């Protein structure tokens, strides 16, 4: 057991580091401001659950945002926001890295700098090339939808090459990249149904479809998913509107 030695004006006080640390952990206060159908918030939930971090989830009505949310994220006024020991952090991929750096159990990021860069690259790629296209494919029709579906499929084709031969993007275990792009496994099929279109063709993309099965069969991933029926109803109502998140 290692010791932390603190000197004050009365002399040297010896404190048992482990006891001090556990006391601090009990005082940790983790809150997540989220909207149940948000793919961005889901990433944060998965990360916290995999690491066994207790948190309080505060559901926001994104059409009637609370003053508290607006104070916590004044720049973007969006969910999710993680508040840890009264300090707010916004942007879900930023929150993921914060969670991984703060709670060391179940590491999400690889240790090797190149593999970390690789994971960040693909998370960034899916965010910028697939997410917007898939969202647009869900809420548009005709030529506009066809263009969006093609863009989304081009992005999926590249991700397919990346997952070939691997159970997860994190290799044997779910890692940062699985969580960062995990929304593909559940949100895209919902959007496909709502938009009456197909992006994740199992014949064209067998490796991604296999990953989806593996990913969704993990109890921690599966147990926290929002109800599919509710998602279908919600996204039908959003079909013609811009992203509210």
């Amino acid at each position, binding site marked *: 057991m290692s010791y932390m030695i603190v000197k004050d004006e009365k002399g040297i006080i010896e404190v048992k580091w482990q006891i001090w640390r556990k006391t601090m952990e009990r005082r940790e206060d983790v809150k997540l401001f989220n909207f149940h159908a948000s793919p961005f918030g889901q990433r944060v939930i998965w990360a916290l659950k995999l690491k066994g971090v207790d948190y309080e989830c505060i559901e926001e009505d994104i059409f009637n945002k609370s003053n508290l949310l607006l104070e916590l994220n004044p720049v973007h006024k969006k969910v999710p926001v993680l508040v840890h020991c009264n300090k707010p952090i916004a942007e879900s991929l*930023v929150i993921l*890295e914060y969670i991984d*750096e703060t709670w060391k159990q179940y590491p999400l990021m690889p240790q090797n*700098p*190149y593999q*970390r*860069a690789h994971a*960040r690259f693909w998370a*960034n790629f899916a965010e910028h090339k697939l997410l917007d296209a898939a969202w647009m494919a869900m809420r548009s029709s005709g030529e506009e939808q066809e263009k969006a579906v093609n863009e989304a499929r081009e992005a999926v084709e590249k991700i397919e090459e990346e997952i070939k031969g691997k159970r997860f993007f994190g290799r044997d275990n779910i890692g940062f990249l699985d969580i960062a792009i995990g929304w593909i496994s559940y949100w895209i099929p919902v959007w496909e149904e709502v938009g009456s279109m197909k992006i994740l063709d199992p014949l064209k993309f067998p490796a991604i479809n296999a990953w989806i099965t593996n990913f969704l069969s993990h109890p921690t991933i599966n147990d926290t998913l929002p109800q599919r029926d509710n998602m279908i109803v919600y996204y039908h109502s959003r079909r013609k509107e811009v992203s509210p998140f």
Partner: protein
Amino acid sequence: MAEKKNSNGEVKLLGAWPSPFVIRARIALNIKSVEYDFIEETFGKRSQLLLKSNPVNKQIPVLIHGHKCIAESMIIVQYIHEAWSSSGPPILPSLPYDRAIARFWLTYIDDKWFPPLKSIVLGLDTEPIEEKLEKVREGLVLLEDAFNKISKGKDFFGGDQIGYLDIGFGSFLAWLKTVEVTEGVSLVHETTTPALAKWLQKFCAHDAVKDVLPPIDKLIAFSKMLRANVDLVINPK
């Protein structure tokens, strides 16, 4: 710190002198005193080396470290911080919360603040220029406030040393100045953004920065060429 050429070939950076994203990688390499070969891409064309080393996005910058290829500027900066951790000062803050704040502002800068500035530079017709300039100015007010909170009275976002957020934001300063000159406006100024005005001077004078920020007259000429060839910017060959 002068650009280093003819290193043992272990580290290469594919880029172009005007690109703020390439400038980010160069500043980070300078901070870590890494010798590298700077391989300039020709505007409007993609070399075989670029297509091979970044087949997904086909964009500069690409850092080639031995056999490893790393793309996306701030991912490259984080890689440099991690791969050369024992050389030179750290680039990212040490505490997770401070890192999260730096990463948050980088996301804001790249996804929200830079697009209207880019649109002005390229002379795109998407909305009136006054509206784009207003968005740039509003962003600078937010960044001024962020600087005051994050720097805690020191010279840089990173404190005593330039760090991740200094690099990410500072890489746009030459383009910001270019827009001020070509549009006849003031964007960063001691009356409207006093903290950023001071930071800007110190940042541009820093050893790791001063030789990689392009001269404004060269950028002005380049921006005229860009406007005449917007198609090539959006769809390079």
